[in-house]
């Protein structure tokens, strides 16, 4: 099954900007004032990845999210096929500049990554982690609340999106099974 939680539904078509403007246009930080963004700029972590480099692996403990400042990121899910016992890797989605991923780790306690992320090309990521969020909440509680509200919105929207997809799938599965029963009856 496709892992819809990794699809970006907050994609923003922005052009090349500095770190501050990249942060300002991100869905999570768009309510922050310029002073708060300036503080955030000194807290976030900019990391560079080579093509094929693993950003994180499925099953690892995750502590935060990444915003793509440059490049492309592939999301994969690894699962063991019950019949053969082999490890199957499924490409879930490709994320591009301004997308963000891994945000669930910001609210989980020692939560493990539900997918793996790999850099597709030379990629620059802005890492925003739980210690960073706690630092902001501690130093500027109002900024922390703004981020947390947006984060709640993101997680809520992801949940709604996933629920809708599951409902659609169940409906189609039900329709298929009723068609089969009708066919058998006729």
């Amino acid at each position, binding site marked *: 099954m496709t892992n819809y939680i990794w699809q970006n539904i907050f994609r923003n078509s922005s052009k090349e900007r500095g770190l501050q403007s990249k942060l300002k246009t991100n869905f999570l930080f768009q309510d922050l004032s310029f002073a708060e963004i300036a503080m955030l700029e000194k807290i976030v972590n900019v990391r560079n990845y080579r093509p*094929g480099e693993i950003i994180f692996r499925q099953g690892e403990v995750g502590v935060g999210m990444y915003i793509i400042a440059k490049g492309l990121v592939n999301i994969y899910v690894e699962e063991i096929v019950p019949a053969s016992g082999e490890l199957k*890797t499924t490409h879930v989605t490709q994320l591009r500049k301004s997308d963000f991923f891994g945000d669930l780790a910001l609210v989980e306690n020692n939560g493990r990554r539900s997918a793996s992320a790999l850099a597709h090309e030379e990629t620059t990521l802005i890492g925003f982690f739980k210690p960073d969020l706690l630092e902001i909440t501690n130093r500027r509680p109002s900024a922390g609340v703004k981020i947390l509200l947006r984060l709640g919105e993101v997680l809520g929207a992801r949940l709604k999106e996933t629920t809708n997809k599951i409902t659609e799938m169940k409906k189609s599965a039900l329709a298929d099974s009723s068609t089969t029963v009708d066919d058998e009856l006729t």
Partner: protein
Amino acid sequence: MNHLSTETPSQRAVVHEHRVKMLFFCTTLVLLFLVVTQVHNMFVSFLMSFVTYYLLAPAVDYMERWGLSRLIATLVPFAVLTGTIVTLLALFFPDLLAQSRAMQTNAPKYHEAFITMVKHFEEQLSGTFGPIDLQHKINTQVDSFSTSFFEGAPQYISNSFTVLLLTPFFSFFMLLRGRHFMRTLLSMVPNSYFELALNLNYQIGSQMGGFIRARLIESIIVGALLWTGLEMMDFQYGIVLALFAAVMNIIPYLGPIIGAVPALIIALSNGGDGNQMIEITILFTAVQVIDAAILVPFLVAKIVDLHPVTVVLAILIGGQMMGIVGMIICIPVISALKVTFVALYKHFTDFRT
């Protein structure tokens, strides 16, 4: 094709880059460790700076919430702390000095009384268990301690002066630029360990902060209670004995006993009908009951979740390696090691979700 395990030229470059970054990161850590442990007075200065840092950090963050710059937010609590220390010194230092001098003058008397007490104790034990040379052993220990203490006194004073100068300097910059320094250090960590390192840094930092603040507040309250009790009893050297007991109280289990020993020796040497000895025992026991029943559950418990056997082992190892300082710092060090091992274990054991 398995995208997560295929070795490409780019991935070989990644591995090379990781190794180089890891080498630089580890070298920096080793160099920092060597500077802190090998340069004269640096270790104690750093230790005191960390205590000051963790004590003031919440106040600095609180001031920053009011829109003050980090510099001003650091300067204000620093000024308040300096003012408090200067006021306390102005109020109590003359008494502390007078009591220390009187104690030093009477030291031979206390030594003699202590030896007499040990002799009595030894005679009683010898009657039951056969000949024991307790007196000679203790005498040698006390003599060597007194000689090294008094011979090394000028060196201690000189060291204390250096530490007193270095501590505010280090702690000020830790508060002002500590985060920037840690970010620079963490930026050297290879990508695959970055989240782990960042999380470890945060977990150890918050646990240390909580532990140091809790232990400091606990010791201040214990010291204040003992001082009040000793003053009420009109017992000599109240400030010195309470201060010593408060510092020793940081060491779990053994600290309170070590802290009570000088007061008990003085009470013994004072002679009398033994009432003073009983009063001192009751006072120290009562303060320890308050500490164990009220202070520890509210302040310290749950901050460092260590098994009592681990704590005792850590104290013994710390004491053997670095004496009293080792006994005091062993608990935060062992809890930091525990956090590190738990995080590393979680990181390297791959559980598929």
